[in-house]
């Protein structure tokens, strides 16, 4: 496609791309859960959550808080979590980030990483607490490696999201 939209069809296609790339990339990250990896301890980050937080921190105005509900439901169904887990935790994250955005006037790279780390820690603790309520009495230390790896992976995911954002808005 040329850089200038030549017809109404092109315009429609571009606007479709603009609105659906964030959603599609989050669902694609959730689909990574289907990789045929059989692990005996939790180590791999929940990439769907990382992508979601990266989009939210990059484009605060793009998604209203309730967008996290259907995305969370999709993640719950794909990953086999108890239904409602990602719905509640993701929406709570969005509300908390809205609150942070209304207090902090600006954010830089390091603050983004810090907020993302706090969000990841909250999400990991939330999944642990829900697993405990469901009868799985595991120690929180079991989730330590996954938490560390998620925080380290966040900048890489954020890079990918920025690249996607540039492609999404290219004209």
């Amino acid at each position, binding site marked *: 496609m040329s850089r200038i939209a030549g017809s109404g069809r092109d315009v429609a296609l571009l606007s479709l791309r603009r609105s659906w790339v964030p959603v599609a990339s989050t669902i694609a990250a959730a689909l990574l859960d289907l990789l*045929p990896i059989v692990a005996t301890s939790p180590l791999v980050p929940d990439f769907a959550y990382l992508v979601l937080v990266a989009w939210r921190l990059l484009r605060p105005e793009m998604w209203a808080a309730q967008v996290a509900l259907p995305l969370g439901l999709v993640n719950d169904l794909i990953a*086999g979590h*108890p239904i409602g*887990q990602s719905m*509640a935790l993701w*929406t709570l994250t969005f509300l908390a980030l809205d609150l942070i955005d209304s207090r902090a006037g600006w954010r830089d790279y390091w603050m983004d990483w810090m907020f993302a780390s706090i969000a990841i820690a909250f999400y990991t603790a939330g*999944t642990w607490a829900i697993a405990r309520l469901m009868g799985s*009495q*595991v120690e929180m230390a079991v989730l330590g490696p996954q938490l560390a790896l998620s925080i380290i992976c966040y900048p890489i995911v954020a890079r990918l999201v920025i690249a996607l954002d540039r492609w999404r808005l290219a004209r």
Partner: protein
Amino acid sequence: MAPPSTRRPGFSRRAQYGLFLGYVTAVAGILFAVLLLGVAIVDPTGFRALKGAALDATAPVQAGGRGIVRFVGGIGSSVSNYFLAASQNAELKRRLDASRRRLVQARVLELENQRLKALLKLGQDEPGAIAVTRIVGSSFDSPRRTAVLSAGGSSGVRPGQPVRSPEGLIGRVIETGRWASRVLLVSDGASNVPVRLARDGTPAIATGRGDGTIELKTLEVGKNPFRRGDVLVTSGVGGLYPPNVPVAVVVAVQGDATVAKPLADPSRVDYAMVFPVFQPAAEAPLSPQTQRALEEAGQ
């Protein structure tokens, strides 16, 4: 930049109401999600149809990539095998000698067993496997330890059925779709398997620790009966798991705490076999008389 003094999105009433309504929806959504979670906690088999459909829709993707599991899982062990060939060879020879001696003993015992069983006219009806299938995926990013099997309700798999491989017990089925099912592994924190020590029959409960290992809890207080290298088999208590299926081998004993490693590694096993519930009565609801007696005892 200083934060704005108000959180209004401008002078437009429509934008203000829209923002407010957005937050109302979000909070209502969270409450709804918590309600769904409550239902899932009280009744883990709820939303069976929805979760089964999701399993079916996603399982074919996983089944296609089973080769990768074997590849990724095998890299580490094949590299170390290459470097440790000589010492492994010596070790294996020693073990082979030992197991040959054991084998003769076992044959003798087997014969004696057969003779005694014939004397007692004890029929041991071991049921066949309902389905022989593959493990195609797992919950690798969650604190729960579950795996996905590529067989479901259409092959006769039902929630509650035990799953094993030739090496040992894998877990039990918790959700089924038509072509796929989810298995709660023995290393999950919510999995409690009644076991006994193969050496002397000491009963214990094997509870998962969530990191691929199992914690053993004995029913007796004081002395820890386990030693490193002890093998545990299912005891058949509770009627869910058939007896004498190997479960785990003890890897560490520290005071009262005993840590064991499951014998069947879900990332390595070739086949998973689904068996019927050992004693179907264990899953059946209580009879009205028992229910009444329990209620009276509770009052």
